[in-house]
């Protein structure tokens, strides 16, 4: 398994463990237990922050905050950026970064809502969102893996061009969706057992992401590449192909998120996905994914997203203005990371 070999130092050990043949038999017996113990500390501290927020919301606005509709609201608002963050977590775990996620969401949502695309109805919009996301991910991945470009630069270039192309397509106009099937998916009537479809998609992407990272060879390779790419290469992992797949995965998540955003807002606009890259990175880092690579946690990332969304929700319910919101958000990021680091350090000591 991959968890135990991710010491904060991010040293060489990961690669051998990530190799398929030897570790599983013994690893499965002993490693997961310590891994879960440590994962629990991290996760628990995040849950603690979330619980504190819930108390704060419950005390300040009990009737509005402690309400099923509000739970749906928070989860729905978290769903789009949540899906993006799952993809981002993989990329960061492998030691990369994807600054283009917001721009890809914008481009995919815009492309999927042109008059021409809308003629193909629900399937056309869904297909276009996903394919545009994948296409951008493919370009990112190819440039980084085979063009040997630094991820920061390659995805920054994608950020600029995808936003530019989105603007070119819309000419700044708001493209409203007229396909009923898509609009209905965002309405109350579409709830499945009281759960909005977007939240279900978020849950499904999270579950698949968790399995992929923690229970598959693909996940182990991702961690190995992030821990020490050279060691991973020597251990027989095709690092370049792995990187290509990871940016494809991030692009796919952006495509799915773009479709979700089209459903949620009933439109496509070139300003969509504004600052998603920063939100997704922040959520992943707060969650416990190492920016230097070698360790990633889907559960942590999702909790990070939920913490952010809950903060926004509590502030809005208490009618606090954007200036206060921004200051407090920054402070809470720092506090969350400090608390988490201290808990983990104590645990290790």
């Amino acid at each position, binding site marked *: 398994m991959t968890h135990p070999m991710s010491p904060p130092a991010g040293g060489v050990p990961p690669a051998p463990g990530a190799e398929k043949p030897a570790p599983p038999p013994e690893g499965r017996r002993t490693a997961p237990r310590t891994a879960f113990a440590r994962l629990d500390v991290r996760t628990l501290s995040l849950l603690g922050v979330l619980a504190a927020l819930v108390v704060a919301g419950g005390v300040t606005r009990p009737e509005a905050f402690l309400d099923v509709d509000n739970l749906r609201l928070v989860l*729905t608002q978290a769903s789009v950026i949540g899906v993006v963050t799952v993809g981002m977590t993989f990329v960061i775990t492998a030691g990369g970064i994807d600054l283009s996620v917001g721009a890809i969401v914008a481009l995919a949502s815009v492309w999927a809502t042109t008059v021409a695309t809308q003629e193909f109805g629900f399937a056309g919009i869904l297909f276009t969102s996903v394919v545009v996301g994948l296409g951008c991910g493919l370009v990112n991945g190819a440039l980084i893996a085979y063009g040997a470009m630094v991820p920061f630069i390659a995805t920054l270039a994608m950020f600029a061009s995808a936003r530019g192309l989105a*603007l070119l397509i819309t000419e700044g106009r*708001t493209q*409203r969706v007229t396909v009923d099937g898509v609009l209905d998916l965002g309405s109350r009537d579409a709830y499945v057992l009281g759960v909005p479809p977007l939240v279900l998609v978020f849950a499904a992407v999270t579950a698949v992401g968790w399995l992929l990272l923690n229970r598959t060879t693909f996940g182990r390779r991702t961690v190995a590449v992030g821990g020490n790419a050279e060691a991973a290469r020597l251990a027989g992992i095709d690092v370049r192909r792995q990187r290509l797949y990871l940016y494809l995965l991030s692009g796919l998540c952006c495509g799915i998120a773009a479709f979700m955003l089209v459903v949620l807002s009933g439109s496509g*606009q070139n300003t*969509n996905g504004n600052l998603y890259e920063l939100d997704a990175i922040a959520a992943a880092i707060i969650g416990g994914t190492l920016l230097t690579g070698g360790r990633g946690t889907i559960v942590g990332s999702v909790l990070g997203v939920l913490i952010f969304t809950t903060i926004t929700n509590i502030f*809005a319910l208490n009618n606090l203005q954007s200036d206060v919101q921004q200051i407090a958000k920054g402070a809470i990021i720092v506090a969350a990371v400090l608390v988490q680091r201290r808990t983990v350090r104590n645990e290790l000591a």
Partner: protein
Amino acid sequence: MPDLTSRRGLLFGTAAVSAGALLAGCTSNEKDEGNTGSSQQPAADDKPGKAVTIGFAGPQADHGWLNAINEQARARAGKYADVTLDITEGSNDTATQIGQIETLINKKVDVLVILPADGAALTQTGLKAMRAGIPVVNLDRVFSSPQAFRCWVGGDNYGMGLNAGHYIGEKLKDTPDAKVVELAGLDNLELTRQRTKGFDDALKNYPNIKKVARQAADFTVESGQAKMAQLLQAQSAFDALWNHDDDQGVGALRAIDQAGRDDFLMVGGAGALSAFEAIKADDGVLKATVLYPPTMAASAIDLARALGQGKGVSGLAEFEIPSQVTAYSAVVDKSNVDQYMPIGFD
């Protein structure tokens, strides 16, 4: 005009009193606004005169309103046989825009119409044009120095808030303990604060009305949906909503629809075509919108033409064109929406 603390406000102070008074009378008349503004209407003085070349430089048309600005300018210039419009590719980059304007100066156009991406950053360029003997009509985003333009034409953000507040106030004046909610635009911008101040000042006239919540979105559909959803959750019942911007209003209406709420009246801002259509259809909460009319670009062309021909504006007694023109933020509701339909943007 109410007392403003902004640069725009200061400029009002420096404007000639006579021109100001005349314009105040003129801008408060909705019919006149429609006449001078709408590209559908014949111009007041459309007899061909001296040929004028007008250079037009604007920012990148990255949202509907700016698109409409370009279209209005083009259409208006096209109406006059004696006007040649030299329009640049819009840019949000200050250096690029400076370069474009300097090219227009070198071409020796007769008059410049400039909508700067950033008013303060382009002030020097405005000054340069004026010193080169090319009068500048400054559109909407104002230069830092009044010396950098001959005439300023723009919108009235404070007036938007004021008119929205009065419209809502009149609708709710008989409702005891009425609650109002505000969905503002990007809080970083001075114009958002002016809109909010105007709105608050208007509501002060109605002691039975209380503003219970305000959240700021950022002019995007996505943010409009997100912030409105939160506002609806925060306020289980209210009587009216003012949304600063019709673009983010598309998202706000989506959130209202998703929450299944229809127990209040909504007023928009800016004047998007989708808002006009919703108001005309009258099948939802949106009952009115307050204009920030893109026709000001057409008016800027009119003023630039008059400037180039050395004439005043017909309908005013002045020999010269005014130094300030503030477009009126008319309230468009079902009663007058047809008139404004042609200037709606998407």
